[in-house]
């Protein structure tokens, strides 16, 4: 840290800014696209028949039960073997998005399922169409069940983007490693990297806990 001022600090800030921005960029992509895809899959699972549901479940299960790092390693080598030419960051991003989407789909399905059948019935007998039922009755209630897990996963994915450093993408962790290779002083760098993650994640986790509390209040 206070090793030598000038070079160290400037490089530090620059690299970390690059790294951090990539991390944030990846996280945002994962959360926005992943939530959308995850929501659609989760919702589909609630209306699909048993057969399709099982098929979707198999895919979701595999993605969630395999270490993210292996999925990233596969994503790294697979395009080469298939002869497709895509950037590592794209391949990695796809994996991360799918990973987040799989988790989301579980949360969404559990959330929708948690709304009792009686609510559906009551809504239906008042004349609401399926879409109206979902929009005004079911989803508002499902949302409250989804929030705790969802925010937990969203927070997790921000941290999980760190794994993409293993296949060479320069995000926060990787940028730290690059600096270490120059300064040969790992300890302070890892401290700083940890600190940066903490600064980003901790407020979000506070917010998510508040949301959780608010979601509990006002419902039975």
């Amino acid at each position, binding site marked *: 840290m206070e090793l030598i001022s000038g070079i160290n600090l400037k490089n530090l800030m620059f690299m970390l800014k690059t790294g951090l921005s990539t991390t944030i960029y990846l996280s945002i992509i994962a959360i926005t696209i992943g939530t959308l895809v995850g929501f659609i899959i989760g919702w589909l699972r609630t209306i699909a028949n048993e057969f399709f549901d099982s098929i979707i479940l198999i895919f979701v299960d595999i993605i969630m039960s395999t270490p993210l790092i292996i999925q990233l390693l596969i994503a790294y080598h697979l395009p080469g073997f298939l002869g497709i030419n895509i950037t590592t960051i794209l391949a990695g991003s796809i994996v991360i998005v799918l990973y987040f989407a799989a988790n989301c789909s579980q949360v969404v399905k559990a959330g929708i399922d948690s709304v009792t059948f009686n*609510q559906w019935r009551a809504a239906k007998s*008042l004349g*609401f169409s399926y879409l109206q039922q979902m929009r005004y009755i079911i989803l508002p209630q499902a949302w409250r069940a989804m929030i705790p897990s969802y925010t937990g996963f969203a927070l997790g994915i921000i941290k999980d983007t760190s794994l993409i450093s293993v296949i060479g993408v320069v995000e926060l962790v990787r940028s730290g490693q690059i600096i270490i290779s120059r300064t040969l002083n790992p300890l302070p760098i890892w401290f700083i990297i940890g600190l940066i993650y903490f600064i980003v994640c901790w407020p979000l986790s506070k917010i998510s806990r508040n949301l959780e509390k608010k979601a509990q209040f006002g419902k039975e």
Partner: protein
Amino acid sequence: MGGKRILELKNVNKYYDNDHVLKDFNLIVEQGDVWAIIGPSGSGKSTMLYCINSLEPIQSGEIFFQGKKLSEYTKLEIHESIGIIFQNYNLFPHLTVLDNLTLAPYKVKKIPMNQCRKKAVELLEKVGLTHKKDAFPHELSGGQAQRIAIARSLAMDPKIMLYDEVTSALDPELVQSVLEVIRDLAIEGMTSIIVTHEIAFARECTDYCLFMNDGKVEEIGSTKEVLNNPKNIRTKEFLEKVL
């Protein structure tokens, strides 16, 4: 009798998978009639109600509403005209009482919101719960919740009200308040079909009575006759057990 025929079930048969839950069910309801449906648990009373407002399909027979076959109406028309109250009220927990009452008329019937609100307030007065306008369902007692459920269905201006054992889940001291609302509606001329265990209430407030057993109509007639001079053995047995 002699009023306009508003509802008719003709030889209705319904199966749940292989369970024959409604057997050649027949019923004629005229406008303004107040019917009590009694019978042991599992006799198909609730199912019959759900078939009337097409929440459940029937396999054979016909249901006529206002002279037309049920299948000739759109689902929307059916739900607008036939209101149903469930045993566990099923209020929407994430909405206030007022929103519970206005949501359906606003979104389904596309009535402008201020009209919905006006009507909601009227209905709240009618069931005696104006002071609960902005409360949430979990803040209500069972009896209050059930009355709100009735108000919610009334907000759609139905022509028939179906009550599915609406007091069975309530503590005894709360039952009266709900029954009063049902009775008042009946007196005002609302065609009502009330599945109930409250025999005393049936005797007091209903015109006709149907005893159902095992999916079949065992006995049917004016309430006085069925409850005081039951002709069917099973009716007698049931009444003895219950009273």
